[in-house]
């Protein structure tokens, strides 16, 4: 069982750089064919100051800068053999580009079980802010732990 004391806990903010090389690698790894995501000239021609982070990239930023407390893959003690990604949401406010430094804050909003504890659900909400302190994106991750 997951320690319920994590419920409602908000992590310390942590910073991560949005690296041009990683965005290009991400584009390659996902078979991206739209040059806006890997060619800086194409990105600028489309009105971007630098390569844009694609829609799901905040998830990768959060994995790259996990919280010291409230980390599903760390101190929460979840068995990595038993996790599944249940749900994923993003809400966007401002674009994120290569060269930005993003500050992430993660709240473990809920921990609940179904089927008499055979399945546990961890709901985490992460905010991503830029260096100006402006909210760029919000993300919700629902992780399922199979105890059955």
């Amino acid at each position: 069982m997951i320690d319920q004391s994590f419920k409602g806990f908000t992590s310390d903010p942590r910073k991560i750089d949005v690296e041009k090389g990683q965005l290009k690698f991400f584009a390659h790894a996902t078979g991206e064919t739209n040059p806006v995501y890997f060619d800086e000239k194409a990105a600028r021609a489309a009105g971007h100051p630098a390569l844009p982070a694609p829609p799901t990239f905040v998830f990768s930023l959060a994995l790259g800068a996990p919280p010291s407390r409230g980390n599903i893959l760390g101190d929460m003690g979840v068995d990595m053999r038993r996790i599944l990604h249940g749900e994923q949401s993003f809400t966007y406010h401002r674009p994120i580009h290569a060269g930005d430094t993003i500050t992430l804050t993660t709240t473990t909003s809920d921990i609940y079980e179904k089927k008499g504890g055979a399945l546990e659900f961890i709901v985490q909400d992460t905010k991503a802010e830029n260096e100006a302190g402006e909210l760029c994106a919000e993300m919700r991750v629902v992780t399922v732990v199979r105890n059955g």
Partner: protein
Amino acid sequence: MTNSTDLAALAVGDTLPAHTQGPINRATLALFAGASNDYVPLHIDSDFAKAAGMDDVFGHGMLSMAYLAQLITHWVPQERLLSWTVRFTAITPLYATVTATGEVTEIFEDAGRRCARLAVRTVTDKGITTIDGEAVIRIN
């Protein structure tokens, strides 16, 4: 890429051009693990996956969601994507080819913005729906 004139004429029932990626092989998963910072061994270590009771390694949910993002961003510029939420309804097995599709389900106004709600999903070549969700895009 759809221009703004086309978007103004968008109607319920309109579909997005389908987007197919794959087949997903072990190299795909290794590359995506590195590129996305996702080192969960279920996706890259067959021994670990089998010990965990799986048939083999399987695709990251976020890999298919990245393909689903491409469905949208190859259709309209990313800035038009306001929000989206998905459920992962089945794992994506090794060697699957993934097709992302979308359909307009609603046209509505929100805070002065004209928006379209899309039903979006990914389906494998075996006909298994792996992601089911919805996205909201700005169309004015």
